[in-house]
């Protein structure tokens, strides 16, 4: 959407009536929101994906405009977590003109608990029942028309990912605005008043609510509710040993496939870039333009293309795992392990989000209710390598170690786990006795929604293309311009001093500069590597003080391998892997934790830790290389 389009939407949003989409977590609210507003909310098959209200504009076929608000999932209107407080605060303060209550059709007995919270409230409601395809797969016949008669509000069964469901939901919104149906059941309201009047507590009311739900389901379901058997795949996926092996297998396969595909493409693109350089030299383009292209643009573009493909494939693999519902199983399996370091299984979910972007991982920690565990999770999440990190690591690892790069990446992964354990111990702040309790629903598996998944992949690649790759090119250009200012003598003095300093940590000075640049933006490290190692004849003949007549391209890879030893490469990989994330993630952390001092302590810990680890790895690697 263009900026003009966004401004138009914002204007509409302020004047059009507000309709809130409410429901328990993982019922398909964001899917319904995307369907109505043609939005691009990130959806996935695990609870807690949406962390903030999102607004969009929906237009009906008759020209009516509604502002639709997608709220984070709530289990009840008595909030017990930050996400639930956000949703309930919105409902209280913004007074939406109507509510779309989303129920999960495959788990009606649980979804309808939230429905009972709305009994007797003076807010018009329309009920949308999602996951109808799973309900049909379970061979359960539910009479939604009867439910509509019982509740007195429209009940619309839909498959959220089908476009034709949009017309049905919009017809429901028009009924909502026209007839303003209220959810009421006198028998239920009277019984609750009686229980409350007897001075009873939440347990009795909850017991009555569950009984009321069971009775209604007996009326509308053709067959009595039965406990459904565990999926056959889950017998393996949830096994305490085989399940963990399977989880590691899926994750590593994703990384391995990404590295192989991106590596092959990068090799191909390198050849094209070399050809382009030679053609440019032969075609007589202006020397300065040729220098800019060869010194900054071509190196940056080559590496950026590698990064794009690597991130695309990795996002596809993780997106499939999220969409089918496997991520929640991973959280279940790792609860025991996480409990040993003071966390819970749900903390795995921000870690998996962090593989795409650390900002997403930090924000994703909102699924954790306990503030202390959320803080610990964010502290540990910084070490989870984002797409920018994997791009650089994959490039350098494949370059130096070829087929053994997989073992190097495995080693880095183990190092990450050790780092997480150490970080949680250091930042626990004396709260050792804090219990790590998990309470989580396991979503149903469903077939991957390829449109959703590829939408996420292309959005991620688009974000990379329009945000990160310009950052790589800009860094490459600025660094190239900076180096061009100095004559050879000044460059030598600067580089000698930097080389002495970086050698303490086992790092080549150019890689140290790339490491420092990664604080701006992880991908900037690649821009720095591209410029510093993409030698041109200009740099080689700088001592002559003359611009070389025939620019020769030396591939970045060859230059890197010539200049850096394998132990130096290992030291850089280790330092880069453990270094702080980009400044965007640091800023978001300070915002989430609401403490700049704590964030700065974390930043210092990560930076010093990365350099120390590099020094140790470099010296240890010297024994083997």
């Amino acid at each position: 959407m263009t900026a003009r389009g966004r401004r138009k939407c914002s204007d509409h949003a302020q004047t059009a009536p507000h309709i809130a989409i409410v429901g328990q977590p993982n019922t398909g609210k964001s899917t319904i929101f995307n369907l109505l507003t043609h939005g691009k909310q990130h959806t996935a098959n695990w609870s807690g994906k949406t962390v903030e209200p999102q607004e969009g504009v929906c237009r009906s076929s008759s020209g009516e405009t509604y502002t639709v608000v997608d709220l984070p999932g709530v289990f009840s209107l008595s909030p017990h977590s930050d996400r639930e407080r956000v949703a309930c605060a919105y409902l209280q303060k913004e007074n939406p003109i109507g509510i779309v209550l989303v129920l999960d059709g495959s788990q009606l007995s649980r979804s309808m608990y939230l429905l009972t919270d709305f009994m007797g409230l003076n807010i018009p409601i329309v009920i949308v029942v999602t996951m109808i395809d799973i309900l049909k797969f379970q061979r359960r016949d539910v009479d939604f028309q009867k439910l509509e008669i019982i509740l007195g509000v429209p009940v619309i069964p839909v498959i959220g990912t089908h476009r034709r469901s949009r017309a049905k939901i919009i017809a429901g919104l028009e009924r909502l605005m026209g007839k303003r149906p209220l959810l009421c059941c006198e028998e239920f309201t009277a019984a609750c008043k009686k229980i409350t009047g007897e001075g009873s507590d939440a347990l009795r009311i909850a017991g009555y609510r569950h009984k009321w739900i069971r009775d209604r389901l007996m009326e509308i379901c053709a067959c009595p509710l039965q406990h459904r058997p565990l999926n056959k795949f889950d017998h393996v996926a949830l096994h305490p040993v085989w399940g963990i092996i399977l989880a590691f297998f899926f994750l590593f396969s994703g990384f391995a496939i990404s590295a192989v595909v991106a590596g092959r493409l990068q090799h191909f693109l390198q050849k094209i870039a070399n050809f382009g350089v030679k053609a440019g030299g032969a075609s007589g383009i202006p020397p300065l333009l040729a220098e800019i292209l060869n010194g900054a643009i071509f190196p940056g573009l080559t590496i950026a293309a590698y990064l794009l493909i690597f991130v695309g494939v990795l996002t596809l693999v993780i997106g499939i795992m999220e969409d089918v519902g496997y991520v929640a199983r991973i959280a279940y399996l790792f609860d025991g392990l996480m409990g040993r370091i003071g966390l819970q299984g749900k903390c795995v979910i921000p870690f998996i989000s962090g593989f795409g972007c650390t900002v997403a991982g930090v924000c994703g920690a909102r699924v954790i209710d306990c503030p202390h565990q959320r803080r610990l999770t964010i502290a540990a999440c910084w070490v989870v390598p984002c797409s920018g990190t994997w791009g650089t690591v994959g490039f350098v690892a494949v370059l130096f170690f070829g087929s053994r790069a997989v073992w190097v990446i495995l080693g880095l992964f183990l190092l990450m786990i050790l780092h997480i354990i150490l970080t949680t111990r250091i930042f626990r702040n004396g709260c050792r006795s804090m219990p790590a309790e998990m309470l989580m629903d396991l979503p149903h598996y469903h077939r991957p929604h390829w449109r959703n998944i590829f939408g996420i992949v292309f959005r991620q690649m688009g974000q990379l293309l329009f945000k990160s790759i310009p950052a790589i090119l800009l860094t490459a250009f600025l660094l190239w311009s900076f180096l061009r200012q100095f004559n050879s003598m000044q460059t030598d003095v600067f580089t000698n001093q930097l080389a002495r300093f970086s050698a303490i940590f086992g790092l080549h000075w150019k890689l140290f500069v790339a490491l420092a640049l990664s604080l701006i933006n992880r991908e900037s490290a690649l821009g720095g590597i591209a410029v510093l190692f993409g030698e041109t004849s200009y740099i080689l003949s700088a001592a002559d003080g003359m611009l070389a007549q025939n620019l020769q391209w030396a591939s970045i890879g060859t230059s890197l391998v010539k200049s850096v030893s394998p132990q130096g490469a290992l030291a850089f990989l280790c330092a880069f892997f453990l270094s702080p994330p980009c400044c965007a993630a640091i800023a978001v952390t300070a915002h989430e934790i609401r403490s700049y001092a704590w964030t700065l302590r974390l930043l210092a810990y990560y930076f010093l830790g990365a350099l120390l680890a590099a020094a140790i790895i470099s010296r240890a690697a010297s024994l083997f290389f």
Partner: protein
Amino acid sequence: MLELLDFSTCAACTSYRVNFRMVRLDEVEENKCCCIRYIEGDGISLGKLLPLGISVGNHIEVVYNRRFIPILLSIGDSFIAVSRRKAQTIFVEEDGNDR
């Protein structure tokens, strides 16, 4: 401690009311049916349990009860994972028959 409620009948499991005994949820064997009879905890922890169906009088089945992983319960048409520590606050009447 919360008041024990008297649910002398459970609509979902009356047909299974044979050989009942009162146990902690984390002591129930796998593939056993049980009925929740008592929950310890304050309003905050109850507020998290109740909407998921862990409520007195509800009928549940223990699918997995193994070391190092949370207990997996089948409640109605949902599967709920409960950490072992949380399960120690829930008391159930265990059906002596297998599922």
